[in-house]
């Protein structure tokens, strides 16, 4: 039985770790105007968690979203005052530390202590769990220098925490749509196997999870697919009804646009089989879905279907890989292309078979221009003959990979005429394999911060 008949508004103020941090304030203002809702933040791409794990290894108080203060700080007071729950996977590798940090933010702002729930159990650890993980993959895990292994959790813990009074829910690895499904389940009281409604809410979450990609971001082609106001794009709000059907809007006086074309691009984003969009919560099916413009900057998605959830949970295993080296140098003006090509041949001849090099020739307008842009203004941008040579390679040994950096740098004196602007970088790769484990391998749950 539904606990509420009233629709639920859920706004998403971040689509990845590194997204704009000023999206939340307009969303919260609009949620308040509409009489309440939920605010979510999605900040966890596939490898973000491994990077966070490395940060936590360095210091036990790190390992959560580095921009947490900027994301949550500006709206914390309004959310607590107006009863707007905040849910994020910004806990990354260390949800407890993120929760403590939010408590500190509240204290620093003179706010009362929020009731913060921490979701645990996504990280696999210990011999027994790793043995069961090993049974689910042909990769020999003992051969890997593993940094992190995390299962994608579903919406159940989020929903339960909210139903028990959590004002903020800090998760690590949960599936992105579950950030939306959780509050919807708590609000409407849906059963865990209400596949149709959960399928719909999952696609609502899918539309939210990349932030402005559904409100005009990542869409514009000047002259063909124009979008106004991309310097101030509004982040999205979905309004879910008791049947799971939903509309997408954005806060007033923000840039961007919501229309059928934009929403359809995002509906299919990162989807493989449209009949089986798999999450921990459901198998969502958009083969019969409709995308309908219901007003200005207002699109409804209807008739999403849901089928039983998969029996397994996906685990991403991140491990230290080889060393990735890249180096660049620019040529411009007379015979720039030929000089860049010759530079690449020189580097290839010197490195020989030690590394397999990727060679890119890049460029429109750069090194002949002045800082103020006078040289570059007007005229044909292709007339500069601007070519940036990029050479990239990877190797298991750092010293071998570093030869890319040394040989490109040496082109300053030893290469073709007029090479300039060398930049180099080398970093260790974090590689990843995935496995699917039976649900009973994962012991997930939630707890309030006080009890942690």
């Amino acid at each position: 039985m539904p606990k509420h008949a009233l629709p639920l508004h859920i706004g998403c103020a971040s689509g990845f770790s590194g997204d704009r941090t000023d999206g939340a304030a307009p969303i919260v203002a609009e949620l308040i105007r509409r009489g309440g809702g939920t605010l979510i933040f999605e900040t966890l791409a596939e490898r973000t968690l491994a990077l966070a794990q490395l940060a936590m290894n360095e210091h036990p108080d790190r390992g959560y979203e580095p921009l947490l203060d900027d994301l949550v700080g500006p709206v914390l007071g309004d959310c607590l005052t107006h009863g707007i729950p905040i849910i994020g996977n910004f806990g990354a590798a260390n949800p407890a530390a993120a929760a403590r940090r939010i408590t500190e933010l509240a204290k620093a702002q003179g706010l009362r202590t929020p009731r913060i729930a921490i979701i645990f159990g996504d990280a696999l650890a210990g011999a027994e769990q790793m043995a069961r993980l090993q049974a689910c993959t042909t990769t020999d895990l003992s051969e890997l220098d593993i940094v992190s292994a995390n299962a994608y959790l579903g919406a159940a813990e989020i929903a339960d925490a909210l139903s028990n009074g959590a004002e903020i829910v800090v998760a690590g690895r949960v599936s992105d749509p579950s950030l939306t499904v959780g509050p919807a389940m708590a609000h409407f009281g849906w059963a865990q196997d209400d596949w149709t409604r959960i399928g719909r809410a999952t696609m609502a979450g899918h539309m939210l999870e990349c932030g402005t990609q559904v409100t005009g971001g990542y869409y514009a082609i000047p002259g063909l697919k124009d979008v106004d106001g991309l310097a101030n794009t509004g982040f999205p709000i979905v309004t879910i009804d008791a049947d799971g059907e939903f509309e997408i809007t954005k806060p007033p006086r923000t840039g961007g646009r919501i229309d059928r074309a934009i929403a359809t691009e995002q509906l299919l984003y990162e989807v493989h089989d449209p009949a089986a969009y798999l999450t921990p919560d459901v198998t969502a099916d958009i083969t019969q879905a409709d995308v309908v413009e219901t007003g200005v900057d207002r699109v409804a998605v209807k008739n999403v279907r849901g089928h039983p959830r998969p029996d397994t949970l996906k685990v991403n295993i991140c491990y230290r890989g080889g060393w990735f080296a890249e180096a660049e140098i620019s040529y411009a003006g007379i015979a720039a292309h030929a000089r860049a090509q010759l530079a690449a041949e020189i580097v290839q001849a010197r490195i020989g078979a030690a590394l397999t090099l990727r060679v890119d020739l890049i460029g429109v307008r750069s090194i002949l221009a002045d800082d103020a842009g006078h040289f570059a203004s007007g005229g044909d941008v292709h007339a500069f003959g601007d070519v940036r040579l990029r050479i990239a390679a990877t190797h298991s040994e750092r010293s071998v990979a570093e030869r890319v950096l040394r040989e490109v740098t040496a082109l300053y004196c030893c290469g073709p005429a007029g090479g300039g602007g060398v930049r180099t970088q080398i970093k260790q790769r974090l590689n990843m394999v995935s496995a699917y484990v039976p649900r009973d391998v994962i012991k997930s749950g939630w707890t309030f911060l006080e009890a942690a």
Partner: protein
Amino acid sequence: MTRTSNTVPLYRLAHGRSGDKGDTSNLSLIAWRADLYPLLLTAVTPERVAAWFGARSPTAVKRYDLPKLHAMNFVLEGVLDGGVNDALNLDAHGKSLSFWLLSMPIEVPAEALHDLPDFH
């Protein structure tokens, strides 16, 4: 009667976006208008897309049709040189691959040409 036709880039008929998971890229292709969808169905076959991306050596190309959205979803396996963890490409996600698909030449009946979207 001779039927004349003309070749236009695919972006005149449709738009789309790329997504990635591992070494697999998905490219949505959405007809600008419902009446253009049948043309997409016949012209943009998985075989043609596989050939168009031949230089990226896909191991499999599958097309899923979504007639209610007048859209299709192409799933290209093995086109990202290992994907975001392994590729040497600047664009390891393959974010730009949709724009290669949208430059594919398509034969269009002459009578359909006059009202196709284009750069203004």
